[in-house]
């Protein structure tokens, strides 16, 4: 505001009035007035200068450059306009542009200290530090005690890596301060002290750095710059308790300082000393005056939220709301968040009523999601997102709602947007959702390995200990042939505590893909894992699975029996034994093993599922389904029991009930491709190629399995959409597992689209694959197509 007064002193009356208006606090009004006057006549340099100063004061620093430049056209205004313009340009990183103006000022007034000081700073900004040091030395000749000049010189010397000279400057500064400390404010002395500590550390003089910081703390125990430097210095040495002591001391001396308090609470929380942190924050709430009590309550709310005490967080927030005259939208949203977190959904909806449409929709969407009304939730969230598109949490919630509804593509879309927002906003790990993982998991399941790789890496950047993610990364990298990524994923997995057995199961799985199941079993055999140990059960299961796949039943049984010798009461081992016996056709012995597993643990779901399979095989469907239902209730996280029960009902002709069960399974287990395919099949057989059947088949085909694609292709063909069918069935035959029937269906689709040459090729592949249910029709069709001349025009057929 000093500038404005200066202008006012030497200005014509109208300018004086405007400057006075600004000095009285009405900067906006003063700006409007200057705009009106300049629109009438822009050639008023003094008015332009005033406008530049007003824009600067209002915070519009870049806009200020235009009128200031115009003001420069008046030689009398060169200095005031030029200095302010240069300062703005330096501050905004445009030092190069500041230099010419400052050079003009200095050419006319070489002794202008402020201009020269700005010039030196502009030279540093323009990476001309050598010239800057020369200018600064000239300044120091006439103003040897100016600490600001010294500090800028220090910066230039650091940039030039002239450390010895910087050390000399520091020593000189220290001498000056010690000689006449009363000449310098404490803030400046503390700053210098912190700079000395940092300088010692940069020169790798760690002990000296610690010594300096200790003496800084003695002299300036509550200075924030010193405290910040000390936290870093002690942290580097692992002296966590020293950090707490220092902060406790600072807080004791200055309990009213909110920054020191926040720093102490943050350190206490990080060091799990929660009671003390809570006490400090609570004391602050009681002791602070009413003006800052709201801030203290806000800090208490954040603290409770961070440590998971949501009810207490809500209490603090609601007290805070009583302290502020009019809660902002942000506070209201926080309130609604907290209410939802503690399950007070009706109150959350009430609170949301005061919000504007977009924000209200988001809160209500979240409430509906918590109530389990995913459809309503999705509608509200998507409406809210329209108003607030870059809110990652909203996207994540919408993704959850869509996933609940079985809309995997829609869910993935929302999750991708959430990741994008989190990346753009550079959110910290704690602030991020698990969206990247959700996308990666879906894309890996759907065969989009490039995308999965990208999102997995994004996820692992923030969750480097996520075992599931590293495991999936290894698999995805394998599919892409990215051997170095695969190797890295396995290497990292092996270093994560508790994940070592999984390294072997993953390696075995990839080995099986490369060299067969026997090689995988051999690899596991060489693992030196103690397979009878409970912690290594996944590895034993994998070994048994690979041995069975390689028809090595006896070896599998021997492995399980060896483990049973060490742990005869392990229900898992009995269930595994039952599995092996079942595979070799010993149903009675298998039944005995599963029953033994259940005897040891009446809620052992693998034994229940195994026993149910044996019961079903013997025709006891009702008991099998009952057992499977029990198993599914006990372990709803796995689709296995639910799927088997639904499949048994389907096989018994209970289509309606099976359809309902598969439908529920698809919703509850979005990655269970078998249930999705079965649901589509049942609908196809019961209601033909209807819209509902098509939707179910499209949902199943998201994961690109050959049977799902084949089914979708057939449905599309029956619906008369031959182009889509050809596209889908081509994708089906591109998989290595496509059956002769799928090739035949592709041929039918190709005939429908008129691509008969390709159709004949598909028929030949189908027939060469061996006999299948429609071999005869395929042969007849091939013969018919072969009879037609190839160059016959399409229209003639």
């Amino acid at each position: 505001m000093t500038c404005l007064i200066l202008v006012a002193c030497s200005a014509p009356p109208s300018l004086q009035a405007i400057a006075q208006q600004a000095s009285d606090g009405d900067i906006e009004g003063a700006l409007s007035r200057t705009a009106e006057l300049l629109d009438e006549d822009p050639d008023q340099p003094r008015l332009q200068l005033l406008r530049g100063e007003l824009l600067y004061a209002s915070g519009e620093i870049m806009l200020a450059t235009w009128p200031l430049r115009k003001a420069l056209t008046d030689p009398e205004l060169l200095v005031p306009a030029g200095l302010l313009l240069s300062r703005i340009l330096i501050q905004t990183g445009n030092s190069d542009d500041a230099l010419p103006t400052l050079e003009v000022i200095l050419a006319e007034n070489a002794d202008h200290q402020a201009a020269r000081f700005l010039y030196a700073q502009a030279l540093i900004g323009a990476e001309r530090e050598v010239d800057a040091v020369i200018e600064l030395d000239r300044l120091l000749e006439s103003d040897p005690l100016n600490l600001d000049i010294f500090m800028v010189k220090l910066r230039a010397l650091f940039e030039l890596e002239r450390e010895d000279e910087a050390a000399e400057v520091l020593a000189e500064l220290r001498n000056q301060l010690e000689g006449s400390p009363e000449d310098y404010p404490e803030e400046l002395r503390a700053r210098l002290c912190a700079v000395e500590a940092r300088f010692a550390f940069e020169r790798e003089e760690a002990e000296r750095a610690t010594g300096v910081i200790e003496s800084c703390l003695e002299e300036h125990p509550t200075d924030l710059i010193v405290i910040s430097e000390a936290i870093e210095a002690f942290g580097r040495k692992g002296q966590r308790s020293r950090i707490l002591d220092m902060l406790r001391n600072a807080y004791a001396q200055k309990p009213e300082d909110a920054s020191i308090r926040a720093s102490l609470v943050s350190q206490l929380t990080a060091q799990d000393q929660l009671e003390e942190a809570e006490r400090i924050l609570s004391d602050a709430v009681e002791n602070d005056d009413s003006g800052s009590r709201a801030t203290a309550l806000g800090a208490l709310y954040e603290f409770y939220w961070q440590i998971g005490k949501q009810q207490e967080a809500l209490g603090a927030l609601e007290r805070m709301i009583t302290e502020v005259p009019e809660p902002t939208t942000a506070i209201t949203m926080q309130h609604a968040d907290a209410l939802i977190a503690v399950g007070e959904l009706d109150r959350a909806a009430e609170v949301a009523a005061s919000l504007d449409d977009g924000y209200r929709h988001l809160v209500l969407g979240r409430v509906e999601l918590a109530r389990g009304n995913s459809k309503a939730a999705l509608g509200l969230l998507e409406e809210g997102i329209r108003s607030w598109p870059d809110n990652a949490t909203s996207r994540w919630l919408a993704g959850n709602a869509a996933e609940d509804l079985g809309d995997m593509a829609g869910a993935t879309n929302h999750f991708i947007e959430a990741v994008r927002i989190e990346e753009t906003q550079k959110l910290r790990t704690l602030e991020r959702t698990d969206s990247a993982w959700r996308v990666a998991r879906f894309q890996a399941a759907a065969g989009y390995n490039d995308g999965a790789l990208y999102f997995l890496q994004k996820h692992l950047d923030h969750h480097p200990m996520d075992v599931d993610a590293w495991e999936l990364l290894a698999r995805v990298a394998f599919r892409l042939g990215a051997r170095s990524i695969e190797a890295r994923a396995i290497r990292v997995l092996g270093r994560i505590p508790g994940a070592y057995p999984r390294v072997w199961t993953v390696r075995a799985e990839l080995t099986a893909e490369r060299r067969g199941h026997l090689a995988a079993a051999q690899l596991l055999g060489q693992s030196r894992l103690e397979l009878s140990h409970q912690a290594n059960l996944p590895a034993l299961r994998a070994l048994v699975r690979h041995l069975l796949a390689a028809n090595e039943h006896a070896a599998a049984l021997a492995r399980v029996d060896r483990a049973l010798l060490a742990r005869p009461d392990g229900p898992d081992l009995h269930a595994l034994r039952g599995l092996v016996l079942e595979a070799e056709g010993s149903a009675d012995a298998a039944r005995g093993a599963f029953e033994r597993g259940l005897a040891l643990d009446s809620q052992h779901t693998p034994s229940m599922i195994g026993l149910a399979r044996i019961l079903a095989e013997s025709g006891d469907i009702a008991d099998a389904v009952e057992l499977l239902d029990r198993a599914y209730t006990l372990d709803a996280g796995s689709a296995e029991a639910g799927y088997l029960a639904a499949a048994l009902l389907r096989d018994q002709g209970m289509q309606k009930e099976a359809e309902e069960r598969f439908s529920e399974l698809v919703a509850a287990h979005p990655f269970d491709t078998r249930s999705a395919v079965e649901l589509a099949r049942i609908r196809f057989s019961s209601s033909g190629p209807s819209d509902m059947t098509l939707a179910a088949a499209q949902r199943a085909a998201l994961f690109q399995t050959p049977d799902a694609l084949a089914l979708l292709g057939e449905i599309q063909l029956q619906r008369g959409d031959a182009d889509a069918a050809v596209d889908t069935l081509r994708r089906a035959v591109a998989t290595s597992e496509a059956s002769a029937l799928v090739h035949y269906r592709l041929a039918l689709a190709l005939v429908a689209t008129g691509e008969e040459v390709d159709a004949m090729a598909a028929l030949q592949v189908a027939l060469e694959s061996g006999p299948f249910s429609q071999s005869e029709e395929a042969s007849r069709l091939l013969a018919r197509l072969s009879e037609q001349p190839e160059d016959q025009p399409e229209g003639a057929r």
Partner: protein
Amino acid sequence: MSRRFLQTRGILVLGCLVLIGVFVGTQFRIVSPLRRTGTIEDLANLQARDDVNVVFVVIDTLRADHLGTYGYHRDTSPHLDELANHGVRFSNHLAQSSWTKTSMASLWTGLYPARTGVLRYSHVVADEARMPAEVFHDAGFRTAAIWRNGWVAPNFGFSQGFEYYMRPENLPLTAAAWHENPAARLPGSDLDVVRSAEEFLRTLSRDERWFLYLHLMDVHQYVSDLESARFGTSGYIDFYDNSIHWTDRVMAELTRVLTERDLLKRTLIVIVSDHGEAFLEHGSEGHAKNLYGEVTETPFILSLPFSLEPGWVVDTPSQNVDVWPTLFDLLGLPQPDESDGRSLLPDILAAASGAHPPPDERPRFSHLDRHWGRTEQAPSPTMAVTLGQYRGITSGAKAETFELYDLVNDPGESRNLAEREPETSAELMSKLSKYRDESTSLWITPEVELDDMQLNQLRALGYQIE
């Protein structure tokens, strides 16, 4: 479910949105352009007028087919449509690259990328290039640029001829600056470009002529406000369209500024873009990766100092290298000695009179070094030639691959006809070979080293620079 809508930064974002909402609500006003209706004669007389100024607006990353005036099904651009409907619209226009720097070098110089030599991230437009701002400056115009894309920064040679070449923001503001002026606000959207332009105009004397270059970036960054977020948020296309609508309103604000200063009848507004944007049409998103239509077909619109009732549509194939030859012709300013483009004034006059435009069988070239951001790797050029209804695209250092598309029957360029139409393929390959072999840079291309901060600013725009 213990997540919060308001993460730490989320609060700031919310604050910004609300602020933008309030600001926009108070700033945007609908202004009917007050210009008299013009004729062909008025167009021809432009050369003789001594009061015409130029606003040259580059809307970064704007593909033509997402504007209403180019047939888009969404109402993304009512204001730009209005300008086009009462001005001149070039319906079949191409940019010379899908990467800003290469494309802008061609746009300004009127030379194809192989002749500007500006193909990689360290390349600089040579001092020898005669830039339009220099022409304006020499003709007595005040020249100013307000830009927000780091690829047109002055160290890349784009500031030649500009008296003022400023970026309305340059993050980060130093701590000292905040300390000194806690109220300091750094602008963050294209609206700030327009406000800055208004402030520039406020400093000009009545009799001064001016040339103002505005480079808008919000479409590139998919920025929009609450009001413009009207096309949904379910994917990148929605965000992109929202940001076009936002930018359209920013352009309306520019029109308001000109109208209120009574400048509209003395100003030629030019709207172009440097490249388009892909949405997986050919397997990739964004731009600067290939040269298909979605990233090279851009708008070219002229809003004259008078209104046309109705506007004229020029269907002659045009391209960004034609833009300045056309503008110089319109304004009576000297043409550059070297140009790969030509003036489209005869085509405008033909469109105005309803006559058939003169036949134009020029091949139009686009060019991208796909390794523009990888200093360690050899060039990997991809070049496209568009001729008649066909587009041919070669890729690889020795043009190892060739694709041919029929743009009339397959505007999405989904069916490669290279093998089915060998004669057309041979003709287009020959054109591309000639372009590749015979086009050399007119100057020795200077290079510049970027510091970490500059590189990071460019990376922040989404570019991959190694």
